[in-house]
């Protein structure tokens, strides 16, 4: 589907402040294109801020201030000269709460392509169909494309949001606790979907669900209080964490 | 940043709006500077110039005060019935249609009706009391609205909690619902009073356009808003424009004072959250 190879993600000395408050401090990490990076850690540890830096959604809070370097492929994400709109087209994002627009299923998926000036009905239809198929939702919604997105179940809405993101052919997908509001069956479907798309996109997945990180990701990073404590291949991290703090967290000694 | 052209245009439009309103108020104040004085505030109007607005201030306060006091219980009763008691969907539908239509009824129509009923029908003179009737008719649906919005802002869990403890309907209303709704009620009544202060169309043919030397309920009672209109349309007084501006400034000041005080009281009445005291 994607012609361009998924880009590497390189983060060097990234710090984010909200006014006086430190959200991320001196984070350095690197993953190869096409891999799935899972971010774990207690609430408020800076995982979501990290995601919002990658597509510069962090700009929405006037108080936020970022320092350091972030590269997505060749793009310098934090450079003020970087075209944020182009960056966001290359970096899809799925949120914790299903954020399907109050439009029809079709219009939700067609929203992104239309932004880029795609007008032709047949082109839109084929884009919508292929994106929904990629998101494993097509079989459930074919023939119901004109229904409001709100009539879908929570899990279906979340896959709709993934389809919506895929329709603008991104290279990176950011998933912010995509299954936190879902039942186990829908969660399994989303995880299956992520694994099916693996390799075509670089994934950054924030999750509260440690098993999910273990099941899905290639690399896991553990954050605490804005610092990156440990990053390692997922298998190593879950079998033999290097840091004591990581072990304490993984064994549930604190939340 | 690209794609913010429309946002820029909107910012320009907003600045235009801000400048326009500042300009209106500044113009009004500027033109009034020549007449504003204690003398202007206390003395009676004069067609020969150098008059004041003393009687108008008094009439406005008396009429708006009386009309507010009368329409308050009338309006609250309607609101309490609609929110706390009415169950029949048909009644709610009819009641809401009547109150919204009544509320948006042009005030000149209220003036016409009160003129027909009270001045012609009952033979009352063009007077302060006829004007009060017009203001009450105008204010009633507004107070009902204010009451309904305030009462609907009280969460049902409050009522259920009280009823579950064995309180009667009226006890729940008095001890739980009213105190909770009070801030919104006070703020809404401030808006209602401000609306009455500025009213003129309903009063021209009910309270009249002159002031009496000796104040009485049965004498004509021109208000500030009517006086401003009169000065700027019919009066031949030499300083009519400046006096109109001065009347406008006084009127705006009274309106602002009422809104400010009711907001303050509403804020003060709000239950405070002591648990969130800063550490």
């Amino acid at each position, binding site marked *: 589907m994607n012609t361009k190879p998924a880009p590497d993600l390189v983060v060097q000395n990234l710090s984010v402040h909200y006014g006086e408050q430190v959200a991320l401090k001196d984070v350095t990490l690197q993953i190869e294109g096409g891999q799935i990076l899972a971010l774990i850690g207690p609430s408020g540890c800076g995982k979501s801020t990290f995601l919002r830096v990658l597509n510069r959604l962090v700009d929405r809070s006037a108080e936020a201030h970022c320092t350091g370097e972030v590269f997505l492929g060749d793009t310098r994400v934090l450079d003020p000269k970087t075209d944020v709109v182009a960056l966001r087209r290359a970096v899809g994002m799925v*949120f914790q709460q299903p954020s399907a*627009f109050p439009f029809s299923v079709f219009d939700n998926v067609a929203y992104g392509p239309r932004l880029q000036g795609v007008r032709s009905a047949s082109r839109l239809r084929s884009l919508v169909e292929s994106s929904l198929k990629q998101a494993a939702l097509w079989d459930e919604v074919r023939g119901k494309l004109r229904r409001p997105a709100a009539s879908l179940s929570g899990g279906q809405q979340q896959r709709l949001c993934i389809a919506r993101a895929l329709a603008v052919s991104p290279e990176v997908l950011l998933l912010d606790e995509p299954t936190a509001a879902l039942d186990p069956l829908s969660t399994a479907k989303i995880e299956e979907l992520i694994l099916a798309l693996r390799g075509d996109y670089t994934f950054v997945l924030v999750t509260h669900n440690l098993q999910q990180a273990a099941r899905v990701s290639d690399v896991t990073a553990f954050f605490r209080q804005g610092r990156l404590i440990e990053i390692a291949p997922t298998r190593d991290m879950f079998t033999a964490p290097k840091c004591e703090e990581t072990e304490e967290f993984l064994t549930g000694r604190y939340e | 940043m690209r794609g*913010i052209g429309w946002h820029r245009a*909107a910012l320009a439009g907003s600045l235009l709006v801000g400048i326009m309103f500042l300009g209106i108020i500044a113009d009004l104040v500027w033109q009034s500077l020549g007449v504003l004085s204690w003398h202007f505030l206390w003395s009676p109007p004069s067609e020969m110039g150098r008059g004041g607005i003393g009687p108008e201030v008094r009439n406005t306060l008396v009429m708006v005060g009386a009309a507010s006091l009368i329409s308050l219980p009338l309006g609250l009763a309607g609101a309490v019935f609609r929110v706390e008691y009415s169950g029949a969907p048909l009644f709610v539908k009819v009641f809401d249609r009547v109150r919204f*239509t*009544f509320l*948006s009824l042009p005030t000149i129509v209220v003036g016409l009706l009160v003129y027909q009923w009270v001045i012609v029908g009952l033979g009352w003179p063009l007077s302060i009391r006829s004007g009060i009737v017009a203001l009450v008719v105008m204010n*009633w*649906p507004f107070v009902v609205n204010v009451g309904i919005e305030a009462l609907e802002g009280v969460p049902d869990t409050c009522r259920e909690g009280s009823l579950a403890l064995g309180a009667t309907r009226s*006890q729940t209303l008095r001890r739980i619902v009213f105190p909770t709704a009070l801030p919104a009620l006070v703020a809404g009544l401030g808006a209602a009073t401000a609306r009455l202060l500025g009213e003129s169309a309903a009063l021209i043919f009910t309270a009249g356009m002159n002031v009496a030397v000796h104040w009485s309920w049965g004498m004509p009672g021109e208000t500030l808003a009517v006086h401003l209109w009169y000065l700027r349309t019919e009066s031949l007084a030499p300083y009519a424009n400046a006096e109109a501006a001065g009347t406008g400034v006084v009127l705006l000041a009274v309106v602002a004072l009422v809104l400010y005080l009711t907001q303050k009281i509403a804020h003060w009445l709000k239950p405070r959250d002591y648990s969130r005291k800063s550490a």
Partner: protein
Amino acid sequence: MKRQMGMGDQCLYRVVWVGAFSLVVLGIAIFAILFWGTAKFVLAHGLNQSLLGLIYEPTQGRFGLLPFMAGSLVVSGIALAVAIPLALSLAVTVVDMTPRRTETVRQILSGLVAIPSVVFGWWGLSVVVPAIRWISGHSGFSLLAAGLVLAVMILPTLSLLSINALTRVRVQWVEGSLALGATPDQTMGRLILAVSRFPLLEASIIALGRALGETMAVQMVIGGRVLLPHGLVSPGATLTTQILTDMSLLPPGVSGHHVLDFMALLLLAAMYGMVVLLERTRRMSP
């Protein structure tokens, strides 16, 4: 099962029952009286010479109301056409501010809502009418002047309601749109305004109601001519201003007094129509 109400409860129930029903009775009485007056008028003078007539000469028995209906519609139309873009501008700008600043703007606007309409009439006389006189060469008293004064008068209400409509759009939707690579303008046009189109329509209807019902600010600047206006800068009259003018010319008892009831009934019917329309748009809102 019906439980016995206590004494206090029963007493309160009766009092509020009377309060609620008397409002309904008064509302219906207003309609009935205006309808009765209109019926008397129509029986005496016929519909051709009134509702559909172009010429208004009460002393000659001609009561054409079309000039006033046209005046009301044109003046309110100008007001909405000018006020809607400005109110939307303000709303678009304000929703991007911090919640605290948005609240400040809201408070200022709710103060401006309370400015008496005669003050806007005064402003119309000292600024708008001379400006139009200077530009057009006519007297300046005109439908255009009335429309502009009304536009400014309804602006605070319209802005306040528009801001409320736009701030109800969920943050997740806005961020979802931005994350898809929508520019701020695209997010505003395709998402925020699209989602809040019914609340915005509702706001416009409420503002239209205020514009149609306003008397004094319009009367001060419109010029009060009873002929069908032939242009925006020519003077005219509206249903409300004509009621004001004719209350002294056609007192009760004079033949033709009930034309005032007719005009009032037309206004009442317009307001009722708007209330029903609002019920519909509210149902469409998300």
